[in-house]
């Protein structure tokens, strides 16, 4: 059988979401951002949410997220995406609003905003990309950088006496009664991507049902910042990041439920 007999529209099983713009992403080869963008675009398309959705982009590598998904977007100041999303959703309660933030944005400069948005139980989805490093500015230490991990501002490894400890912010978020669904996912294998997509789908369903804030952390790679090949970065993440940032659901409930399994 010839390939040309196979490559026909009726045999199509996987293609780019119509909501993903026809522009090459600026991310480095193998960057997890592209996969998470794709999953989001697919879900917004499959769930018919394009007209309802407003995305809030952060400052960091994904500052240009608004160039890639065909929905309305707002670009927030560094760390302020949850406040911007709060503003949008409070005066537009019928909209589906999400923030897309990295670890520097969410867990460092924007710690107050994310804590309080989650604590108020804003009906928004938060996508939190945790790769333990500042990608855009050239690989500096992030609050989530592992102990001993080498970055450009911890060239001899993160020393907890000097730099403090890696911050498990998702575990803190899961304690807040305003949240409904808090989970930690990854996207390094086909199985992980499919699982992550299910988790984000559930998070969106919760937001649409006004159950409170849904928070999805995606443990990710930054192969450029980590100075590894994309494939090696995935293995390094599995061996080093997952033991400290274990995958799985941390809370699955509704806003106001303080007896939820944490």
């Amino acid at each position, binding site marked *: 059988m010839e390939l040309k007999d196979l490559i026909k529209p009726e045999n199509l099983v996987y293609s780019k979401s119509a909501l993903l713009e026809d522009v090459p992403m600026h991310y480095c080869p193998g960057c997890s951002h592209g996969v998470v963008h794709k999953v989001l675009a697919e879900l917004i398309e499959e769930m018919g949410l394009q007209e309802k959705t407003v995305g809030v982009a952060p400052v960091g590598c994904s500052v240009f997220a608004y160039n890639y998904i065909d929905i309305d977007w707002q*670009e927030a100041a560094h760390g302020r995406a949850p*406040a911007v999303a709060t503003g*949008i959703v409070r005066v537009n309660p019928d909209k589906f609003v999400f923030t897309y933030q990295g670890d520097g944005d969410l867990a460092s400069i924007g710690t107050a905003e994310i804590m309080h948005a989650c604590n108020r139980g804003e009906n928004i989805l938060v996508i939190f990309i945790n790769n333990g490093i500042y990608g855009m500015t050239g690989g500096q230490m992030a609050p989530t950088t592992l102990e001993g991990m080498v970055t450009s501002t911890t060239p001899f490894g993160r020393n907890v006496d000097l730099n403090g400890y890696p911050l498990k912010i998702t575990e803190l978020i899961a304690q807040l009664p305003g949240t409904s669904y808090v989970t930690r996912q990854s996207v390094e294998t086909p199985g992980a991507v499919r699982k992550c997509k299910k988790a984000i789908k559930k998070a969106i369903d919760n937001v649409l049902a006004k159950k409170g804030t849904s928070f999805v952390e995606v443990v990710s790679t930054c192969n450029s910042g980590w100075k590894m090949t994309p494939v090696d970065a995935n293995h390094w993440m599995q061996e080093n990041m997952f033991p400290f940032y274990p995958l799985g659901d941390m809370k699955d409930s509704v806003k106001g439920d303080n007896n939820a399994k944490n």
Partner: protein
Amino acid sequence: MAEYKLMKGNEVLAEAAIRCGCDGYFGYPITPQSEVMETLMARQPWTETGMVVLQAESEVAAINMVYGAAGSGKKVMTSSSSPGISLMSEGISYIAGAELPCLIVNVQRGGPGLGTIQPSQADYFQTVKGGGHGDYRLIVLAPSSVQEMNDFVGLGFELAFKYRNPAMILTDGALGQMMEKVKLSDYQPRWTKEEIEEKWGSWATTGKTATRKKNIVTSLEMDPGRMEQNNIRFQKKFSEIEENEVRYEAIQCDDAEYILVAFGTSSRVCQKSVELARAKGLKVGLLRPITLYPFPKKAIKELARKVKGFLSVEMSAGQMVEDIKLAVYEAGSTVRVNHFGRMGGIIPTPEEVVEALEEKFSWELSYGVKRSY
């Protein structure tokens, strides 16, 4: 039927917001303006007009909530006092950069730092010359009565949306706490979803439909050539504002030889100073800028050609005085421009102002002014 009430300046800001069809208020408590949010929370406008009121976790969050809500085409505002406005300055720069309309109120207190909680006008530079980073301007309205506190809420929104630029009411703790009779505005309905889409659908994040391209609210542009074009567009807008939106009040300026220039609370003091000075035989007038940006440069230039001197009366070390000097210089006039002010939360007395005028212009009062043109 017009509705009259005796109200505090801060309370009337809240009342005016509800009545002008404001969609949301995001704020953080700070003296001397906490009554704005307290009044709103007690009035519960969400049950009446649907207006949202939210106490944010900080001024930083509050101004970014304003950014988000304004980015969706809604009529939203915040209020704070000097230290809080400093915290908001980052967000204000982003709002100006993203060309979003909103209203910000600064009920000033004495500074720098935590300073005092008493009235001051020392945020003139911050408000009129920038505050945040980058080449932007705020449309600045300076009320001098509780009535104007009411009126400028609607006017501020009108100008903000007309030019897609943040507007600020620059007032102070005295006007915020002062009670006066005020004629309340009539109720205006909030814009409907359809009205917002029709008016602001070209830029606001109202949700991407099949009939239009996606809207992106951002102040970011990586290409310096395009960023320069954005700045050129902003500057064009500011020129239009300077051309069309200057507002001021001239009190007894026609025959005046000396002009007091003052805004807000200090202009109220100066009204009395004009009376006292005239009783002493001094021909003194008062020019009260209502818009601090755009500054009433033309009015000052015209006066500069006929008067003997200007005294800028401010509750600061002298900030607006620089803009008066610039206008006088541009008029080609050599009359002197002096400043008199009290700082740290002290309001000058009318007598102090007259004394300062006599002292600072003693030369002119004794020998007159020689004009070379």
